[in-house]
């Protein structure tokens, strides 16, 4: 029997409940405030006093109000029908809520229980299975959605029955399983899982080796991320974190994209709501919304649900990964999540760590990032969760707890630079400070050599060298003056500017330039490096900049043109003749 209690104290969304009955840490309870039930989560137990964080506003709540404990942790419902949905942080379906304003205690079902799905069994009776194994499949939008043995089943089971091909609702029993002594277990297409427990129904988690194309040159060319990789994007406001994340969510080579809009602007989520049903996935031609699920806890929605939202998103990602799919999970912004933790820690009067964040923040961040990865499933197929989180460091200063905590675990670091943003050099990813640890992975190196080019890695490291040298040359010019340095310095600086303008900078709003497939990236980098490797002869430093500006202009026009189109070749010819003029043998 579920436990009951009474409200004893209220401080904002922290409520103290008195109960003599058993309760568990992270258990969910319902506060019966008049007509509405307010959902809350246990976060601390002190004798008969239980501290709960309420996922709603506590306005008007009174001492003495009854509380019902549910005996369960915060769970999500997993089954066909998650894709294309817009959920709040607790997986309530936002579209089925009534009215313009969110009503307190309005909880809506995440899945459609009346919809029928075309089920196709994958295993025969008599087969031995365990948690996460595929029993059958249905078509959800364009993907094959596997119906799995519930993750909560321990040990091995024998399939007794598995329904034949046909149309079923998610709550229909589709299979029965038996394990030794127990009676038959019914399996439906829907199951529940607590969000804070990682789903681990896979064989093992090898090192990632396959590059995940994002279409963003500053990432793919210079610091690639892998399938199953982790990365983070810190940057002050106004540096284009969200624009960059949206670009990645549109273009990345993923089967499923889960977006956790965590404590950010509502209008940014609206942009996704409105655009994704219209925009096409550049790889499959389907609408982007078909492969996307959005978890929206915008900054004005309750703080405690913000903390839950990233876990909800991660659990949905893990579910699809177990179907052998490539999942991309984006969280904007993980700092807001950390701030939610801080607000609660503060109300519970815990001893604070740096900047009043809870002391265990780095551990929490690290555990969360570790749920991403490339996995091999029991049946030998592979799946992955690639996770990219943004960080919003206070005052743009990277020496703060969330950035530092994330740096310890995330393998890719895309630092957005205020200086680049100020001069509108977007995406503002700093080419020198950013890194991808995956570039050093043997598997990744082999993959790039085989799939891009044998020379690719040398080209990339040469590019980075020129960028570095160009920056040094620029510093010298700034210190000594234009005519205080040899012309050679100017040439070096402008060569790095060519890389900057043509490779690093990319117009996220231009229909062609916004997405560059790897083949085109390779072509353009080759083109640019040819110029960089050439010897030029200039008499005066004044001529250097005006010459390179024209070179950059031709290259940029190429970027704006359809790859290998007539227009593209016209600008290419223009470029070749420009280079011919100045080339020194």
């Amino acid at each position: 029997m579920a436990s009951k209690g009474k409200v004893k104290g209220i401080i904002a969304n922290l409520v103290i409940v008195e109960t003599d009955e058993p309760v568990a840490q992270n258990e969910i309870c319902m506060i019966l405030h008049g007509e509405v039930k307010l959902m809350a989560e246990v976060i601390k137990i002190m004798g008969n006093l239980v501290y709960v964080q309420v996922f709603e506003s506590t306005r008007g709540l009174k001492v003495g109000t009854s509380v019902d404990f549910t005996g369960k942790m915060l769970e999500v419902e997993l089954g066909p029908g998650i894709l294309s949905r817009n959920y709040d942080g607790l997986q309530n379906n936002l579209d089925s809520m009534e009215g313009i304003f969110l009503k307190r205690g309005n909880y809506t079902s995440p899945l459609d229980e009346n919809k029928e799905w075309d089920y196709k069994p994958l295993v025969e009776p008599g087969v031995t299975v365990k948690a996460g194994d595929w029993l059958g499949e249905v078509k959800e939008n364009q993907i094959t959605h596997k119906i799995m043995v519930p993750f909560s089943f321990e040990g091995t089971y024998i399939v007794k029955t598995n329904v034949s091909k046909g149309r079923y609702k998610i709550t229909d029993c589709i299979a029965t399983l038996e394990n030794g002594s127990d009676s038959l277990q019914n399996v439906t297409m829907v199951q529940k899982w607590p969000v804070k427990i990682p789903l681990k129904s896979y064989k093992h988690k090898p090192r990632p080796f396959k590059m995940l194309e994002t279409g963003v040159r500053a990432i793919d060319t210079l610091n690639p991320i892998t399938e199953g990789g982790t990365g983070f994007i810190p940057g002050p406001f106004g540096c284009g974190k969200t624009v960059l994340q949206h670009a990645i969510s549109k273009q990345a080579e993923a089967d499923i994209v889960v977006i956790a809009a965590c404590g950010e602007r509502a209008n940014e989520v609206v942009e996704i709501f409105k655009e994704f049903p219209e925009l096409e996935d550049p790889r499959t031609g389907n609408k982007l919304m078909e492969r996307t699920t959005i978890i929206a806890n915008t900054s004005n929605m309750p703080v405690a649900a913000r903390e839950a939202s990233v876990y909800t998103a991660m659990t949905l990602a893990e579910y699809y990964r177990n179907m052998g799919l490539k999942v991309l999970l984006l969280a904007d912004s993980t700092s807001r999540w950390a701030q939610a933790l801080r607000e609660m820690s503060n109300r519970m009067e815990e001893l604070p760590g740096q900047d009043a964040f809870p002391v265990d923040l780095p551990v929490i961040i690290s555990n969360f990032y570790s749920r991403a990865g490339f996995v091999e499933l029991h049946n030998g197929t592979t799946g992955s969760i690639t996770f990219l989180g943004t960080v919003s460091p206070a005052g743009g200063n990277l020496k703060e707890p969330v950035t530092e905590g994330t740096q310890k675990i995330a393998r890719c670091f895309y630092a957005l630079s205020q200086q680049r943003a100020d001069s509108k050099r977007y995406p503002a990813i700093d080419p020198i400070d950013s890194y991808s640890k995956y570039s050093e992975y043997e598997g990744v190196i082999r993959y790039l050599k085989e799939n891009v080019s044998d020379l690719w890695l040398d080209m990339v490291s040469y590019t980075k060298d020129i960028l570095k040298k160009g920056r040094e040359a620029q510093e010298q010019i700034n210190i000594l003056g234009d005519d205080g340095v040899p012309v050679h310095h100017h040439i070096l600086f402008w060569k790095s500017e060519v890389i900057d303008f043509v490779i690093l900078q990319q117009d996220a709003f231009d229909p062609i330039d916004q997405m560059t497939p790897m083949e085109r990236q390779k072509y353009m980098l080759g083109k640019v490096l040819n110029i960089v490797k050439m010897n030029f002869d200039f008499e005066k430093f004044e001529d250097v900049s005006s010459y390179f500006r024209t070179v950059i202009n031709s290259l940029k026009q190429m970027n704006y043109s359809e790859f290998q189109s007539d227009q593209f070749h016209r600008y290419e010819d223009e470029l070749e003749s420009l280079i011919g003029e100045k080339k020194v043998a």
Partner: protein
Amino acid sequence: MEKIAFQKIYTKISKVTKATCSLIAENAGYEELAFVHKRLAQVVKIIDKEVTLQVFAGTEGIPTNAEVIFLGRPPSLRIGPDLEGRFLNAYGDPIDGGPELTGVETEIGGPSVNPVRREQPSQLISTGISGIDLNNTLVTGQKIPFFANPDQPYNQIMAMLALRTKADKIILGGMGLSNDDYLFFKNTFENAGALERIIAFINTTEDPPVERLMVPDMALAAAEYYATNFNQKVMVLLTDMTLYADVLSIVSNRMEQIPSKDSMPGSLYSDLAKIYEKAVQFPDGGSITIIAVTTLSGGDITHAIPDNTGYITEGQLFLRRDTDVGKVVIDPFRSLSRLKQLVIGKQTREDHPQVMNTAIRLFADAANAKTKQENGFDLTEYDDRTLKFALEYTEQLLAVDENLTINDMLDTGWNLFASHFSKSEVGIRENLLEKYWPNGKESELVNIATESNS
């Protein structure tokens, strides 16, 4: 003062601090209002039978036997058509000598809009100021602050902007406003003959500071009334949000909360977001646009208040006095309107995005040239041209005292490009160059450029 027939009066206060007092009381609801010694207060903490009340006007002189009466409702405003043209205080009571409000008592600080019910902001707001319309175009349903040092004329610019935009309603939330500035707003709106479009909630420096915590919620509750019931375009002006946040830190300090950065409460981000996120475009055409002011200390945007604000709002308008032309300008580097992409080149002329970006890039080149100049280095011929361009650009387009249509701004931009640069130097898409480049100007210039090079 309100009286409810069966209400219980308490007369035994057990604790009094600078901002709060506590007593043993039954049946109090969280965030409920009460009168303590005839001063308005709100429940901020309940532990068992002990209720802690935050007294808005301060606790000076409150005795332990003061009368405490609970009102049984959260803060509210009497909302109705008679709000129009009224000047009210932070509690929603008239300060203009007019009659009491008669509308429906409505809770303030209500729930937020379901994100899937929002419309994407899509209507351009034209202000006539190029620093805004050209470089940082505003859209209905947007929230954006001015970042300004206290000595800059932000209130004047805000009032001018609000009047020029032809909003159906202008709702002013004044927090810590000096009495002079309050009168400035009142006179400006009166002189513009716009009083019937105005509703103002005013907390001046003469009023108790904690009261100003209610001002944004009051203003936004009124805004929601007009935007949802009458589908009106409402513009909410909030000045000065820094003074609002200062009070948040005072209150949290007195509640003995652990401060985070710059002694601000750890919940500053959520507190500010709750206000700013009320900006919305409703599906039926009504909208709430929030223009706020966040004053800076010495231009420092890394302080917790502007920093958190910047993460919440859809950009910021950075005011700066330009010493070269002696005018207040909207800084093109540090200002940003995140929603401009929704309208520029779509509701404005196709060349808008490229003209905007090119001008700013050239202005950045000029800034580099200026640094060189200041460090005593020789300038190239290109540097000289960028500097000339920058001066004219600042005077004709960045200064806030201009009033132009967007097409005029774009034409001015092209003229400036053509009189200082060659086509290849501006790096604009060729089809736009062909269409908009002022004829005859380039050849002339390239000649000058080549001559001076040889």
